[in-house]
């Protein structure tokens, strides 16, 4: 008994050690080579070897990004039928359609990593997957269309411009395409803000109110502060992310504050002031409790957004079925005419 135990363990230990070392050296050298490759500013393409964690991180990030584009259509779609002029209406319609396109580019990029689009969509509809918390805020006034284009698309652009240089090829290419389209989104939003800010007292008030409500959630779009963002370091090392959350946030603030001043609107932050020494704006504390609360599902519109998404998906089922039936019928026709 004792002997068998002793030998059993001893043999098992030798076996494990040998094979583990073999696997580990092989894995290590592959991972080292991957890191060197990425360090050399080379792009990773779908069929290249990549660490499993790199693949998983990308699938999660790209699909969350895709979901954000899709859910992001909802707050704005709310105003398409009530846009104040035909000019504003065609612009908003085109913008919302672009966001649908962005979602599709991103789902495609995720699929190059072996993800299945329907699985990703199922995760969104069941509430398992996350999307940007900004889209859980309501859009009660027309000025919100201005503030979203200016601030929310503005913040998204800062992030997406950085991602044009991400290490995964298909993601970077999707970002280049998206960035080309985003610039119109921000400009149409700023134009709305400008019109309101230069309008009647009531219009100006409406613009200020929208800025008050969207400013802080926009800053939260960049995610937790660097010291509370545990996965950031690895993403930076793999060059998926090229700038930290705080860096991007600062960039956005520095760019946006003068734009608010030009509008004659007040950024709702008493601590906001130019820091000559740093060459940046200092800003007040972000309410992270609110941020985590919205992420957890307790934002003002989380439920509404999920319900709308599910309703749209279910209501579209007959279209997908009809398209399938039509495709099957066409294929059959072709086959019988060939016979």
């Amino acid at each position, binding site marked *: 008994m004792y002997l068998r135990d002793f030998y059993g363990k001893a043999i098992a230990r030798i076996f494990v050690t040998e094979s583990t070392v073999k696997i580990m050296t092989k894995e290590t050298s592959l991972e080292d080579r991957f890191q060197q490759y990425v360090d050399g500013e080379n792009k990773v393409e779908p069929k290249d070897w990549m660490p499993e964690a790199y693949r998983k991180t990308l699938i999660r990030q790209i699909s969350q990004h895709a979901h954000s584009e899709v859910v992001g259509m909802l707050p704005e779609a709310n105003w398409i039928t009530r846009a104040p002029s035909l000019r504003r209406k065609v612009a908003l319609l085109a913008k919302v359609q672009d966001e649908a396109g962005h979602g599709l580019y991103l789902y495609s990029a995720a*699929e190059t990593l072996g993800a299945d689009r329907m699985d990703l969509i199922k995760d969104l509809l069941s509430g398992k997957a996350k999307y940007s918390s900004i889209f859980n805020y309501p859009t009660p006034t027309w000025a919100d269309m201005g503030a979203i284009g200016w601030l929310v698309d503005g913040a998204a652009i800062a992030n997406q411009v950085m991602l044009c240089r991400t290490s995964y090829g298909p993601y970077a290419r999707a970002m280049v*395409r998206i960035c080309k389209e985003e610039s119109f989104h921000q400009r149409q939003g700023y134009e709305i803000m400008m019109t309101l800010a230069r309008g009647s007292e009531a219009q100006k008030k409406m613009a200020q109110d929208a800025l008050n409500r969207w400013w802080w959630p926009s800053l939260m779009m960049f995610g937790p502060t660097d010291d509370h963002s545990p996965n950031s370091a690895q993403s930076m090392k793999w060059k998926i992310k090229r700038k930290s959350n705080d860096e991007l946030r600062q960039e956005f603030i520095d760019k946006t504050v003068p734009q608010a001043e030009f509008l004659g609107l007040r950024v709702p932050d008493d601590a906001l002031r130019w820091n000559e020494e740093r060459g940046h704006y200092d800003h007040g504390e972000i309410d992270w409790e609110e941020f985590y609360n919205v992420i957890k599902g307790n934002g003002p519109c989380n439920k509404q957004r999920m319900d709308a998404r599910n309703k749209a998906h279910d209501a579209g089922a007959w279209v997908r079925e009809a398209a399938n039936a*039509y495709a099957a019928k066409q294929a059959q026709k072709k086959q019988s005419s060939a016979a």
Partner: protein
Amino acid sequence: MSNKDNWKIWEIFIRSRNGLSHKHVGSLHAPDAEMAIKNARDVYTRRSEGISIWVVPSESITASSPDETEPLFTPADDKVYRHPTFYDIPDEIGHM
């Protein structure tokens, strides 16, 4: 949600104008080729990016493997004589 909702994937190629080749722009889902072209029109040419679309089922594409990169492509690296600069032609001959 049934799996039949999951239309197959198509790779999309777009010719931006006559005189240029079709270029790969991305992929999308569609139940058949005809719908793939319609979807590609909406997804990839919203800003006059193209005048002609090719759609190819992704499953029909056979790609070389990254592992074969060396044997496939390095043999060309040491064949400098395939390039015009390998040959010495006097300057007075002009452009050739």
